[in-house]
């Protein structure tokens, strides 16, 4: 292969480029990056960067002087992939022939309200973070729509900045979909303990305000006043450009368990990719940081070996930092038949819990227990054939 194009310049794309070089690819490498910014890491956008504790330079994805010997095309998007896979059409009107393509176009924040008034923000990009940060002034009233990871982290950061925060969540508890209601209630307690008003089980009917947002109207008519509204209701994968490519796209690019798509020498990784997961018994589109990083190496290995080298991806893992606590989950809680708190105390928002299926650990959740969690994570990564835990 003489030229490989990586479409996407965020964590998945940069990790793929790094993996290509690390695994010995020394041909031409073209990075097609929609954003003009130098590649940056997104987790700090809702935490240290939003809090003003880290600078743009500090959240860069590339090391000092690291170029990966690539041709960086920034501010350019891919608009089409030819069915053969051998060529990309770019938004600057040019065509880019390539022997192989890594699709890493990520996702964008969902915004259910088109053309919202000023003060209504989403948080996905560095520019989003700059804008949100400029509005989180002490005493400002922030309404967060959605108590998922972005919503919860922004709420925590905003409280630290002296902002008045209300979180509106349609489900019964925050992070209920990911953690279940029992542990979702723990997260609810964490918000309450830090002075955040949490309104669960209620949706937002409409935004109030003409030019500048003045509040949100909940379903049922209750009005909550706001100077700033952060909409954190999930993402959509950036895959529309692949229409007509011949790839199967259904909530992400369909891939096998190693990132390979239906087209030879085209792989997909990160938020835009839906990998087959044997443990889940179907395709799953993971949206987490660690997946984007680790699976890039898996996909590249598959690509460079022509599908012969198959490195199994590790179990899904995420972390989230809220109110100075680290929340971590590894594995799959769906299908678990029991869950037990094995360390610490739920009441004190500081614990480690193990999910099991037929006695076998399938997932571990921790809040403020990063150190023992790491040992569990390694055990789960070692695979189901070696359940090195004390008998349940």
């Amino acid at each position, binding site marked *: 292969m003489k030229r490989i194009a990586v479409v996407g310049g965020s*964590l998945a794309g940069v*990790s793929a480029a*790094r993996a290509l070089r690390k695994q010995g690819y020394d041909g031409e490498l073209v990075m097609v990056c929609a954003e003009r910014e130098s590649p940056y*890491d997104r*987790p*700090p956008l809702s935490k240290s960067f939003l809090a003003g504790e880290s600078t743009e330079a*500090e959240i*860069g*994805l590339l*090391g*000092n002087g690291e170029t990966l010997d690539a041709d960086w095309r920034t501010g350019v998007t891919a608009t089409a992939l030819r069915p053969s896979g051998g060529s990309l059409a770019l938004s600057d009107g040019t065509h880019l022939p390539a022997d192989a393509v890594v699709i890493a176009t990520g996702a964008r924040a969902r915004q259910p309200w088109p053309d919202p008034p000023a003060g209504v923000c989403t948080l996905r990009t560095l520019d989003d973070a700059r804008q949100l940060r400029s509005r989180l002034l002490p005493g400002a009233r922030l309404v967060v729509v959605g108590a998922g990871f972005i919503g919860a982290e922004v709420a925590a950061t905003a409280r630290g900045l002296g902002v008045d925060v209300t979180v509106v969540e349609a489900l019964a508890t925050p992070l209920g979909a990911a953690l279940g209601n029992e542990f979702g209630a723990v997260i609810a307690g964490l918000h309450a303990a830090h002075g955040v008003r949490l309104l669960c089980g209620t949706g937002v009917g409409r935004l109030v305000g003409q030019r500048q947002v003045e509040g949100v109207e909940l379903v049922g008519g209750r009005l909550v006043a706001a100077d700033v509204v952060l909409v954190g209701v999930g993402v959509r994968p950036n895959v529309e450009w692949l229409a007509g490519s011949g790839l199967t796209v259904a909530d992400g690019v369909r891939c096998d368990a190693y990132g390979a798509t239906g087209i030879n020498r085209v792989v997909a990784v990160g938020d835009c990719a839906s990998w087959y997961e044997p443990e889940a018994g179907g395709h799953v589109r993971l949206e987490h940081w*660690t997946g984007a*990083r680790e699976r890039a190496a898996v996909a590249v290995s598959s690509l460079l070996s022509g599908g012969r080298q198959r490195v199994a991806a590790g179990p899904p893992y995420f*972390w989230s930092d809220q109110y100075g606590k*680290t929340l971590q989950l590894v594995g799959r809680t769906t299908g678990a038949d029991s869950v037990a708190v094995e360390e610490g105390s739920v009441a004190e928002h500081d614990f480690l819990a193990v999910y099991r299926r037929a006695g076998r650990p399938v997932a571990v959740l921790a809040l403020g227990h*990063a*150190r023992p*969690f*790491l*040992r569990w994570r*390694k055990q789960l990564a070692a695979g189901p054939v070696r359940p090195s835990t004390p008998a349940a």
Partner: protein
Amino acid sequence: MIRVCALADLPPGEALRLDLEPPVAVFHTEDGEVFAIDDTCTHQKASLAEGFLEGCEVECFLHGSRFDLRTGEPDGPPATRPVRTHRVDVVDGDILLSLSPAGQPGNPLSTP
């Protein structure tokens, strides 16, 4: 030069945190090599001595940055800056540590 402990008191696969300013972590790898680096992850304040040792790399227990014990370099974000490495020698069964100058990140590597 600081005497850390007897090599026999630090089994392979184990690490030791020295309460210096700044703290230093000393690792004895499964392959029998001994390394020393600054203990604090350059991303957030976590002790690398508490991390997961695998080969010549230690993974921070908090967010998963991996540092090469030989060079102090991280393998990628969230950490982007290297930790200082320090020279260690094993003399007559004792681990001896020679601290690198302050403010000097990463290399140079100790001579074997």
